[in-house]
């Protein structure tokens, strides 16, 4: 071809001069140099692989484009390892929120320098002029009521001044040391959620705080994302399928989980599964985004999902267990659930019985070890009660019987065949009294049940199978006398007809969906799946709702099957390299134990919300039992603290580092005895027993990788007033008839408990605004870190695209810097190591879960039962802390891991891996013996590498060791699950080159072997590994005393809490406009992930630019509200000012204020409070649930982020009125 004459690349001959093509369409006659404009925009210097450390469990791999040294934009990576030829791929992963992240880098919202509020900085500088000693300087401030009031009252009201980094660090370190010396390290708290989203950054603060003895606050339960039902049923925190496994389902029931909105990068698997013929049914009160994809829509009334699920359970039991018997279901129920296990029935009133405890080997006088922990079934073949393998009693002994083989321990039988039902073979029938909790009928249901007569300790007793109790409770008519429905139409619990008036869903629809769901499971051997989420998980009774829903997957053999089972997606997280992260973050490599506090209890007391309780426990407890032991929910928490069920920090009403000295003990044992005696005599109290006393206040709070106040602070206004001591606008007054017994009620309610709030963030948000000190953090495009999730099986790296700009630092560098300043100050302040008395609760996955047999309440406050640490008292440890060495320990990997590392009750060694790290990372420079040869953790990247090297999911050698340990415990053959990848060690370089899939390991319950999709509990079902529960199987029945007390021994239906807009005693605002009352819901939002991204200009532009609430046109009309009007929304807990979004997508009676909408962008003032409107959490308040405080009993034992009361917030109501006048309150 002839070369063109015109300048090259400007006028291209192929891209030729155009001529008019014909008479209607014209082409340019000019050259095309104009194209260079866009071509140059596209060009960039480099592309960096990183991810987003946001609390969304997306863990998406992104390409960050750098042009002229500037981060310009990001697009998703598309190079995930393949799911195979017949499945959709993971590419691309990402969402619109994530795509705006680069906006933060250079935005005016970026925190560029350290800031301290003027009021505090002035006091600090004055005090520092008075003394050379920084700790003394803090003392000058903190012991002066006028001074503390001054800087605390200024919180949240502007006035930040740029501070010198060193100065800020010194202030923090001085405050920490002052607190440790005067009150103990357990008064210092750290809040940083979801380690999986950026493990190194989480570990930064966690490691530092653990080393000094400061408690970390849990988040999963606090966020109300933890489904308490999961530990209850499975003894597992949460284990769910990766999103691609949705594609394997034959039936998808989506229940309160708005996939397109909240699982944006995953939802295509659901969409695409439909083309494979998978039916999708949606349960949702509003016409939500996921409803768009559903074949059926069950428009349920909010919070009534439990009733719907109970009715579906009824249909499945009736049609698939009575009308026909599906062999697959029956076999599954016998092998993998507690349905064939027996419980004893206890006499209630005349002619009546109530459910009781599981029948155990001990009850039948079988001479076995741990007999109280070995429940029994009745063997069809031998016509005897037998003790199946796999119970928790087997777990904590070395008999090799901790497996799900069909073996019996009592007579050494094999091939046992448990009886499911006693119907037609019963010794007798008795009337069972069952609790019922809705106001629509009598509270006790009486139905006959087939039972077996047995002799227990010489006494005649009745026993029934869990299966028969389930059938009886569900009201499935098997021709037995009692209050059984004759048909689905009968308005008797729990028929489809009964639920109709509660849920608003037509019974025919309920029957149809239940039937389809089960039929599909029968046709596909368990490939029916329920995707469930916060829509049904954030309620006060979410655990009972979930248990009712989960009945469906357990009864149809779907759990532990690819394409089947529950798929819970709410803030769940999966730190895939679990042991490595735990070791580094909790400084286990230097010994411990760490102080790990459950968040809900902490905030409940710290923010004084406990005093605002609206309901007596009597309103919630079982009508078939005695009256509850306490009226006030907080008393149950005090019970849980003293019995070792829940952690409780601040710990005692005295400094934990002084107790040892005080005791004058010569040994550890003496010291422990001293403490037990002190507790028994009442000389020493748990701090929780008087949260209003100054000595028991939390003094310091670090918040990093989090937005506590703007995002997760349920009862926001209580936080501001009681914890921070600044403005806070509640209207609520105490209920004088509802006072605590076990907790002292101080007459003056404290305000401003916290002495120092430190926030580390890259953006100014609702936490930063109210913090005393804000330190500038590096963003996710400026650091090394790793992230993982349960949505996909890959590990993703963070890599810096640019160096942290201005004075920002990575979290790792910030906390190591603080550790260094702290350690230097400690040289003078702590010349010698101190002995810290550390209490810990009775832990799940440890032998302590056998502490309290039969699930009774061995309360030592009764004056009879002796308190015993580790039995009915927390475990007591003595930890030596050398505060001068904190920095050195922080940046060296301690030698403990050489001998032991592990998780979930399993431990192995990491000797070779430790040695590898010595070479890989280099050793630290100190010559002292304690640090000689320790791998260096000075750099964040090294920490990431250490986590990868020390975890069995990322290092094949450890996976092999871990399986070997479990093989020994179970006498099963398991190592083959990891064999194919035994030689792999995922390095930081490798995962940066391309995402890598994790290795199958016993720290999780699913198998990825052979490029299989992850689904939980597949190793339990296929490889016979027990669940970590009482029976070793999946539990329908929970027999703990407190469960019985509250009538939740079986999945049941409990209505949401009643409306609590205002009580007569409250200070209700007087308004002259029309007011409507609506159920206040806070679903997850489309235009942010919690608060992240919600403040970026693109996200604010793409919807309505500020806080808003959604309501139906009918409700809006009633209050004369038009679309986009300003409104005021309030209840006794607080007030919000927002815009109205009126839409016919919304049902009547409900208002949505999407989570998270804060108060610092486009929020005007309220004429009612004469102050700025609040956050979406201003109208919320915590309601704690006593059944979630149980501990020391099999799967109902404490684990951090595993069990504990949730910070639910769905059960509230609000008033809404139109706001006529808008003031911006610029003063």
């Amino acid at each position, binding site marked *: 071809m002839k*070369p063109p004459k015109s*300048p*090259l*690349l*400007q006028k*291209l001959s*192929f*891209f030729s001069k155009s001529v008019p093509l*014909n008479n*209607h*369409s014209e*082409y*340019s006659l*000019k050259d095309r140099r*104009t*194209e260079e404009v*866009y071509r140059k925009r596209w*060009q960039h210097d480099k592309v960096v692989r990183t991810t987003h450390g946001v609390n969304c469990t997306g863990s998406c791999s992104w390409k960050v484009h750098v042009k002229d040294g500037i981060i310009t*934009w990001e697009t998703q990576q598309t190079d995930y390892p393949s799911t195979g*030829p017949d499945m*959709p*791929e993971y590419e*691309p992963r990402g*969402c619109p929120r994530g795509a705006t992240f680069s906006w933060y880098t250079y935005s005016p919202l970026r925190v560029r320098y350290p*800031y301290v509020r003027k*009021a505090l900085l002035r006091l600090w500088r004055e005090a520092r002029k008075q003394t050379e000693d920084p700790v003394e300087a803090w003392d000058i401030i903190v012991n002066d009521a006028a001074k503390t009031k001054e800087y605390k009252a200024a919180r949240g*009201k*502007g*006035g*930040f001044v740029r501070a010198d980094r060193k100065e800020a660090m010194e202030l923090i370190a001085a405050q920490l040391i002052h607190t440790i010396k005067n009150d103990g390290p357990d008064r210092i708290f750290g809040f940083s959620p979801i380690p999986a989203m950026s493990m190194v950054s989480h570990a930064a603060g966690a490691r530092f705080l653990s080393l000094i003895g400061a408690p970390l606050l849990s988040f999963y339960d606090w966020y109300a994302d933890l489904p308490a039902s999961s530990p209850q049923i499975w003894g597992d925190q949460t284990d769910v399928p990766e999103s691609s496994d949705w594609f394997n389902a*034959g039936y998808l029931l989506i229940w309160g989980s708005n996939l*397109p*909105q909240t699982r944006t990068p995953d939802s295509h698997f659901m*969409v*695409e599964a*439909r083309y494979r*013929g998978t*039916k999708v049914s*949606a349960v949702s009160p509003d*016409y939500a*985004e996921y*409803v*768009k994809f559903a074949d*059926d829509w069950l*428009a349920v009334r909010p919070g009534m999902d439990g009733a719907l699920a109970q009715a579906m359970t009824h249909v499945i039991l009736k049609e698939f267990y009575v009308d026909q018997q599906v062999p697959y279901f029956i076999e599954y129920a016998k092998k993998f659930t507690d349905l064939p296990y027996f419980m004893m029935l206890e006499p209630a009133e005349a002619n009546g019985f109530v459910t009781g405890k599981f029948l155990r080997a001990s009850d039948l006088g079988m001479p076995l070890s741990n007999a109280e922990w070995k429940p029994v079934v009745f063997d069809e073949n031998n016509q005897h009660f037998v003790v199946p393998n796999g119970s928790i009693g087997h777990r904590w002994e070395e008999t090799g019987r901790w497996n799900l083989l069909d073996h019996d321990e009592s007579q050494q039988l094999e091939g046992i065949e448990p009886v499911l039902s006693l119907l037609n073979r019963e010794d007798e029938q008795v009337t069972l009294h069952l609790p019922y909790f809705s106001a629509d009928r009598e509270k006790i249901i009486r139905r006959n049940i087939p039972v077996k007569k047995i002799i227990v300790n010489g006494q005649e007793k009745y026993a029934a199978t869990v299966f028969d109790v389930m059938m009886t409770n569900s009201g499935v008519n098997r021709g037995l006398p009692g209050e059984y429905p004759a048909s689905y139409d009968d308005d008797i619990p729990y028929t489809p007809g009964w639920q109709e008036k509660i849920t608003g869903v*037509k019974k025919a629809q309920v029957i149809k969906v239940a039937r389809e769901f089960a039929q599909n499971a029968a*046709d596909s051997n368990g490939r029916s799946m329920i995707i469930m989420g916060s829509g049904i998980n954030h309620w006060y009774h979410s655990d009972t709702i979930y248990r009712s829903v989960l009945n469906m997957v357990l009864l149809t053999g779907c759990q532990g099957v690819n394409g089947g089972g529950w798929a819970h997606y709410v803030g769940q997280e999966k730190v895939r390299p679990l042991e490595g992260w735990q070791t580094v973050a909790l400084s286990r490599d230097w010994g411990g134990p760490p102080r790990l506090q459950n968040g809900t209890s902490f905030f409940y007391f710290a923010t004084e919300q406990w005093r605002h309780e609206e309901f007596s426990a009597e309103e919630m407890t079982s009508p078939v039992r005695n009256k509850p032991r306490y009226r006030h929910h907080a008393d149950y928490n005090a019970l849980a603290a003293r019995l070792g069920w829940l952690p409780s920090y601040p710990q005692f009403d005295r400094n934990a580092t002084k107790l040892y000295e005080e005791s004058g003990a010569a040994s550890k044992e003496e010291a422990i005895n001293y403490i037990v005696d002190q507790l028994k005599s009442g000389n020493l109290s748990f701090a929780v027993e008087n949260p209003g006393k100054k000595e028991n206040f939390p003094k310091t709070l670090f918040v990093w990788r989090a937005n506590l106040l703007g995002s997760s602070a349920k009862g926001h206004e209580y936080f501001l007033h009681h914890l921070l001591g600044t403005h806070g606008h509640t209207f609520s007054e105490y209920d004088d008839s509802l006072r605590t017994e076990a907790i002292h009620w101080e007459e003056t309610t404290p305000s401003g408990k916290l002495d120092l709030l430190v926030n580390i963030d890259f953006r100014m948000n609702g936490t930063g*605004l109210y913090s005393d000190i804000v330190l500038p953090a590096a963003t996710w495009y400026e650091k090394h870190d790793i992230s993982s999730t349960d949505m996909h099986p890959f590990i993703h790296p963070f890599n810096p695209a640019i160096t942290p700009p201005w004075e920002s630092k990575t979290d790792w560098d910030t906390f190591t810097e603080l550790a260094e300043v702290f350690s230097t100050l400690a040289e003078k302040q702590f010349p010698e190591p101190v002995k810290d008395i550390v209490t810990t609760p009775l832990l799940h996955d440890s032998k302590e879960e056998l502490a309290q047999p039969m699930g009774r309440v061995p309360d030592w406050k009764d004056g009879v039962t002796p308190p015993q640490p580790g039995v009915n008292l927390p475990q007591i440890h003595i930890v030596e802390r050398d505060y001068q060495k904190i920095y050195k320990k922080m940046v060296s990997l301690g030698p403990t891991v050489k001998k032991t590392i592990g998780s979930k009750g399993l431990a192995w060694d990491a000797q070779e891996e430790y040695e590898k790290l010595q070479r890989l990372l280099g050793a630290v420079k100190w010559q002292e013996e304690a640090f000689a040869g320790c791998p260096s953790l000075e750099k964040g990247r090294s920490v990431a590498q250490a986590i990868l090297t020390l975890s069995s999911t990322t290092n094949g050698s450890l996976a092999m060791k871990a399986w070997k340990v479990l093989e020994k415990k179970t006498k099963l053959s398991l190592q083959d699950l990891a064999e194919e990848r035994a030689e792999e060690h995922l390095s930081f370089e490798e995962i940066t080159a391309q995402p890598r899939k994790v290795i199958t390991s016993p720290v999780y319950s699913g198998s990825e072997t052979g490029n299989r999709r992850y689904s939980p509990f597949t190793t339990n079902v296929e490889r016979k590994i027990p669940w970590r529960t009482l029976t070793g199987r999946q539990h329908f029945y929970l027999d703990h005393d407190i469960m019985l007390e509250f009538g939740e021994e079986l999945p049941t239906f409990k209505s949401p809490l009643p409306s609590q807009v205002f009580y007569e005693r409250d200070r209700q605002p007087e308004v002259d406009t029309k007011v409507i009352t609506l159920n206040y819901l806070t679903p997850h939002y489309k235009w942010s992930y919690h608060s992240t991204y919600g403040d970026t200009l693109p996200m*604010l*532009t*793409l*919807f309505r630019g*500020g806080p808003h609430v959604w309501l139906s046109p009918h409700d809006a009309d009633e209050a004369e509200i038009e*679309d986009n009007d300003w409104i005021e929304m309030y209840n006794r807990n607080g007030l919000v000012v927002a815009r109205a*979004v*009126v*839409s016919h997508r919304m049902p009547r009676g409900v208002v949505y204020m999407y989570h998270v909408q804060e108060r*610092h*962008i486009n929020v005007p*003032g309220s004429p009612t409070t004469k102050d700025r409107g609040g956050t979406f959490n201003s109208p919320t308040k915590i309601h704690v649930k006593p059944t979630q405080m149980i501990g020391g009993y099999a799967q109902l034992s404490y684990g951090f982020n595993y069990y504990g009361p949730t910070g639910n917030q769905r059960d509230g109501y609000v008033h809404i009125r139109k706001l006529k006048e808008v003031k911006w309150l610029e003063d």
Partner: protein
Amino acid sequence: MKIKAQFGMVMSLDKCIGCHTCSVTCNNTWTNRPGAEYMWWNNVETKPGIGYPKGWENQEKNNGGWTLKNGRLELKAGGRAKKLAQIFYNPDLNMIDDFYEPWTYDYETLIHSPEKKHQPVARPKSQLTGEYMELQWGPNWEDDLAGVHQTGKLDPNMRGLEEQVKLEYEEAFMMYLPRICEHCINPSCLSSCPSGAMYKRDEDGIVLVDQDACRSWRFCMSGCPYKKVYFNWQTKKAEKCTFCFPRIENGDPTICSETCVGRIRYIGIVLYDADRVEAAASVTNEQELYEAQLSLFLDPFDPEIIEQAKKDGIAEDWIEAAQQSPVYKMAVKQKIALPLHPEYRTLPMVWYVPPLSPIMNALEGQVDALDPKMMFPTIEQMRIPVQYLANLLSAGDEEVIKVVLKKMVIMRHVMRAKQLQKEYDSSLLHMTELSEEEIVDMYRLLAIGKYEDRYVIPKAHREQAGNMYFGQGIAGYDFMQNCHECMGGSGALEEEFEARWRKNYG
């Protein structure tokens, strides 16, 4: 016959989750700058609704696109004479408020506020005037039916449905409509430009604005019935979606496509007969425009077409790409993708697979037959009225929509039987005129949709554009490429090089 290659896109509305990632990534890459703040070359609308800009589909008001006058194709806004008369006042032009007034916030105040009585707040202020403002409209104001109980009534696609559809909770329906420039075969923006500043690239059909030639008349804006040409108020030039040609030329999909997490987008080329464009755009009956446009697309497997295509300068790898093209497959072979508002007569090249939707009467309890074999609702029971989709995608012809939806439902039915290893009713296949093999092909493209199947993008033959041997060394050097005066150059260097080149290799 004159064969041309044209890029097209298919978006499956059935897969769209309405997440707007496409909008954000496009905006970040291309329009995140002063003068372009309000531009969303790619936007996503909730339907029903009036969209962005407000009421863009209302051609009675906007006068965009083409119309037939006395059997001849004419711009709806009028011919050259009329345009000349109105050149200083264009009555059809959308105003900024129809799009929205772009805003930002005084974010700085959150960090720099002095101590105050109240918590500081970042208030919205206009990016045009810098003044504080009250937000009244935005580029996605109606997201998920926000306010649509009212604005929905103004949606032109609701015509004929006023009686039937109430915009009430019980009957609520919605879908998302992601939109980019249609890169029409018969672009009315181009014909509307008095300066000839717009052009359609000969080699791939991408429609662009020549930034040097644009004279700010803005007739392209009003002439485009999709309202996908924007005016940069800083540079005073029109700008629009470029189909990411700098990526496309290298074989990469557009930003909006690659970042689409719904995986709804497909890119490929079609071969079409340029000689028949006018005739196709001029068929009398609007409802025949869809088939007329289809008839332009040529069979890339036909040996005669291949022969002719080569003669017309189309490279072999491009012909191969046309054969593999998902756009060809979905629009022509499977006929499940449809053009957006074919009645505008621009022969748009972004096509849409219409959405399935849940059954209409669920709330009244009129649920489907309980026969488990009939798991899927039938077309008539779908929540989105067929008429609505027809108004959007087939100039009102409901039959066209029904045929597509039926294919999708039957695909689900057949595939369900296959996944459960059961028999299916084979008479269903006859209803769709598709074989099982074709159903499986359809399934694989819609469900499995691997990257290389979604995007079949032949790379540009830049070697034909000039001397790449020379280009290698000078690429990126502005002073050699663009600026003839800088560095003392005068373009002579290049000519000298060329002269030498010709001597040696000529």
